[in-house]
């Protein structure tokens, strides 16, 4: 795993050399003294956990982050991009996980976006359609250039966005999680196109959580951990376990927050099933999801960004209407037409974004009472009761400041999260669904939340915790299911589980 062996593509010249790159955000170090080399005609896989630094490095390359230490040399010339436009002009393009295609325009218009061929000041449609057809065909993409973008499958849209980036003159293309929404045949087709691009001498950086995909297509892989480059290595012959080991480390690095030990899952297979999910599916988001959510148990749902868990959580709360499948509470089938139905059925939900859960300009007590207002007041409000209930929760969850009149916008993030949780606790629901309950919190606040969730479980609530962070799931779950591309692919119950096994399964 020495530097020399990294140059797998033999004598191909270095296209991009970065050395000694460091970058920090407000005192928090995101990249530490990172060296990175990309050759011409190379597919370079980039792996690492969330926050390991791979995205930060790519944003420096793509001109998004302009303040950093270190040197960047492109084709033998030192460069320092001032903007994404700068980087694009130098031949560096990026395809994001969330595509930026325009669904209401045709394929040809998307390919030529911003630089339509004109004749006498009028868009030359024929030239555009023919040009787009030729360009796409040269990449091996067969599609009618006059088709409306939005009518195409997501995999095809992605290829067309890639084509557009190449068409705009990019010699280095950065792909962020390109396979997360693709079916296996689509992944196969993407890889074919990427190999064609490589053959033309252009370079590709492939960032992904899907280790198998990275290993399948890359010439070289680089692994990041805690803002450092751990290793760069020819991809041939590497296996998934080897990669995971390097991604999560051995646990003795400084500032290591990773879980490396094994956790014994204390599942309760005999506890009564509160919410039974059978064959639930919704469009492209998820399919054929069956789960038993049990009283007094925390079910963790782990998966990468875009694996369908966000949509699944919404379907459980009546916000998203599933197309297939059934839900049953305490054995009785329920149909959730809206979130009010879900609340009445005893389901509570805290979404991943506090912004979509809190009323910032309202005082704490109104934020807490909103979900249980129907129980407190039929017609007339009873602000005294609302305040009493809120005060009880503020004490129990040690919310600071301890006054329920404070506007939520004046609270810290961790305290806001507690308020979002507290709103469901006055009349505890049967099922509590939490999406990313600890995202962006400091360690102390995380522990608080884990404590609250455990306390609710011990009162007999059925809790579902959805997260893209293995630590979150491992720290709180009694049973874990792993979602991948919209399906449940593995279940860990009553056994020992560790982070690397979780990553293996995903």
């Amino acid at each position, binding site marked *: 795993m020495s530097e020399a062996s990294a140059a797998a593509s033999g004598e191909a010249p270095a296209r991009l050399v970065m050395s000694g790159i460091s970058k920090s955000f407000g005192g928090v170090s995101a990249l530490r003294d990172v060296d990175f080399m990309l050759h011409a005609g190379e597919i370079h896989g980039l792996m690492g956990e969330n926050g390991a630094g791979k995205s930060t490095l790519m944003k420096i390359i793509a001109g998004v982050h302009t303040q950093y230490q270190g040197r960047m040399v492109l084709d033998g010339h030192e460069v320092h991009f001032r903007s994404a436009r700068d980087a694009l002009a130098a031949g560096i393009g990026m395809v994001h996980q969330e595509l930026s295609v325009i669904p209401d325009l045709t394929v040809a218009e998307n390919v030529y976006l911003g630089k339509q061929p004109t004749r006498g000041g009028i868009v030359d449609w024929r030239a555009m359609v023919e040009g787009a057809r030729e360009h796409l065909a040269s990449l091996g993409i067969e599609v009618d250039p006059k088709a409306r973008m939005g009518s195409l499958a997501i995999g095809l849209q992605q290829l067309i966005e890639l084509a557009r980036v190449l068409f705009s003159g990019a010699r280095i293309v950065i792909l962020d999680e390109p396979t997360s929404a693709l079916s296996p045949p689509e992944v196969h087709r993407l890889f074919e196109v990427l190999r064609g691009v490589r053959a033309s001498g252009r370079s590709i950086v492939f960032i992904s959580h899907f280790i198998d995909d990275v290993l399948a297509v890359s010439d070289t892989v680089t692994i990041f951990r805690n803002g450092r480059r751990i290793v760069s290595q020819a991809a041939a012959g590497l296996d998934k376990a080897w990669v995971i080991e390097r991604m999560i480390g051995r646990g003795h690095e400084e500032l290591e927050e990773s879980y490396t030990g094994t956790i014994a899952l204390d599942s309760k297979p005999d506890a009564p099933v509160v919410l039974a999910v059978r064959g639930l599916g919704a469009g492209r988001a998820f399919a054929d999801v069956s789960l038993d959510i049990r009283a007094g148990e925390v079910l963790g749902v782990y998966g990468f960004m875009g694996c369908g868990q966000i949509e699944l959580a919404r379907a459980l*709360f009546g*916000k998203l209407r599933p197309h297939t499948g059934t839900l049953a509470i305490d054995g009785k089938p329920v149909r959730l037409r*809206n*979130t*009010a139905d*879900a*609340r*009445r059925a005893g389901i*509570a*939900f*805290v*979404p991943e974004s*506090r*912004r*979509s*859960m*809190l*009323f*910032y*300009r*309202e005082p704490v007590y*109104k934020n807490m009472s*909103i*979900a249980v*207002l*129907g129980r407190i*007041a*039929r*017609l*007339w*409000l009873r602000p005294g009761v609302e305040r009493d209930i809120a005060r009880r929760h503020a004490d129990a969850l040690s919310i600071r400041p301890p006054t329920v009149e404070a506007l939520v*916008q*004046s609270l*810290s*993030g961790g305290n806001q999260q507690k308020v979002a949780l507290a*709103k469901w606790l006055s009349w505890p629901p049967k099922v509590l669904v939490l999406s990313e309950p600890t995202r962006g919190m400091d360690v102390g606040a995380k522990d608080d939340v884990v404590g609250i969730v455990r306390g609710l479980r011990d009162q007999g609530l059925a809790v579902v915790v959805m997260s893209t962070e293995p630590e979150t799931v491992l720290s709180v779950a009694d049973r874990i299911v792993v979602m991948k591309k919209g399906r449940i692919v593995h279940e860990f119950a009553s056994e020992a589980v560790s982070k690397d096994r979780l990553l293996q399964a995903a």
Partner: protein
Amino acid sequence: MPAFLRSQMRNIAPFVTLIALLVFFGVASPSFASLDNAANILTQISVAGVIAVGLTFVILCAEIDLSVAAVANATGIFVAYFTLQENYVNIANVPLPGWLAIVLALLACAALGVVNAAGMTVIGIPSFIMTLAMMQIGAGICALLVRGQIAYAVPDFVTAMGAGSIGPVPWIVIVLAVFLLVGHVVLTYTRFGRYVYMVGGNREAAEYSGVNVKLVLGAVMVISAVCSGVAGMLGVAHFGSAQQNEFDGYLLDAIAAVVVGGTSLFGGRGGIGNTIIGLLILGVLNNGLDHVEIDSFLKILIRGLILLAALIINVYVQAVRESERGGSP
């Protein structure tokens, strides 16, 4: 600016505007500052005021209802259509007992509100477009019922409420006061009122708290239509006739009253108190401009400028709040 003043800007600015207008007209015209004229102003704002009560609910939810004037007009004509008209009125009307005509008219305006609500919540048409269509539908109903004619008679009870008075106080002002009071009580002291503010404050959060957002939105559209209908009946009695395009100016007046008063166009902030101030500003402005020597055509422009100023304050206050919040999401 101190934080408290800034946070109360929404309420202070309209109040200061009102005081300034009162002082200005009081000084500029000797006939303005009299008890009689005060009664005049209150009477003049009554029809727009009843509409504005319903519209306050809608705007608090960050929606809009452009059909209020058309629904008012249609309801006014509807109630006249079911009242026996004089011989010289050439309308194929269907005379019914007065109470039945009133009940039918109330049902009719509620039905129009339900159509608005269904278009928005079931089909998903934005309120701006949905109520624009309803504006045309209301005008169409008016046209069909009166066919270019003018009807004069309305049920006695409606005549009494719209044109009568008890002692020195016109009934129409009392009706306005009752509507304002009920609107305020509902918004401030009931669960439904709380839902209105929460849906307006953060619709997504309301939905994730298990509030039936569509039901709340539907309800405010029906409330708005019924308020408009009542205002329409009062209006035809007040003006003494029912005809097409009679209420055209009231759409702008009602929206202006709510917004000038300081209720946020983005929802969740404001209330009936603001609407009262907004109504008084509009009433004082319209009335005061008649008392000073001014080109009557210029009046329209001045009203427009005042509305623009209020909108600037309304949006500016929101922008200040957003930027304050930006740091701590």
